[in-house]
């Protein structure tokens, strides 16, 4: 089981701050693909992923009990 966090526009698109996802052992890009299948309105192309609070590349493997966050382009300051 992995936890997936959504922020800003993503959070509004799917109406949730986080979901539990019952499929570990996939890469970030596979996870993005699966999520977009489940939530067609979600656009993750411009977003970075973070695994356990650190930016992660598309080929990073997501393991059981990891926390994945999708980070849309940031706009702090």
């Amino acid at each position: 089981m992995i936890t997936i966090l959504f922020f800003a526009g993503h959070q509004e698109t799917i109406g949730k701050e986080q979901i539990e996802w019952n499929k570990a052992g996939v890469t970030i890009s596979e996870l993005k693909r699966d999520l977009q299948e489940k939530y067609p309105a979600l656009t993750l192309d411009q977003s970075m992923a973070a695994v356990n609070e650190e930016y992660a590349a598309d080929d990073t493997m997501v393991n059981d009990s990891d926390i994945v966050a999708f980070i849309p382009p940031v706009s702090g300051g």
Partner: protein
Amino acid sequence: MNKKRFAITKEAISIEEIINLVVNPHAGAVNTFIGTVREFTKGKQTLSLEYDAYIPMAEKKLVQIGEEISEKWPGSEVAITHRIGHLAISDIAVVIAVAAPHRAESYEASRYAIERIKEVVPIWKKEHWEDGEQWIGDQLEQTAYPTGKPEKEHLS
């Protein structure tokens, strides 16, 4: 108030408190940068703003920026606090204080800190206008992630 050097807060930021976190006997300059809520962006009026953050990761990334500054400008001390939640026009969104032995590095490090915040710290702002609202996603106020995502060297 928060006494951490690198913090995300839901409260109004006290500039003085941030400065007090960095003042030290080796410093000959303390530079402060104060980011405020802008009412007019290219002629379009903003009524208010909302900031959201991935708080634990955002604080980690602020710490990382502090470490980068310590490496680039040895002897400097940095504190950064960013506010989230609902902010009104001219409210303070971010305060950066850099204490350094000499003024030149205090200016440079302060500039570096705000540019890095806009690249790597997971904070988002939503502008509320008369006729709508939108999450703003343009790093450095230009384009979304210049190359589609933060550059590799920014991510470590």
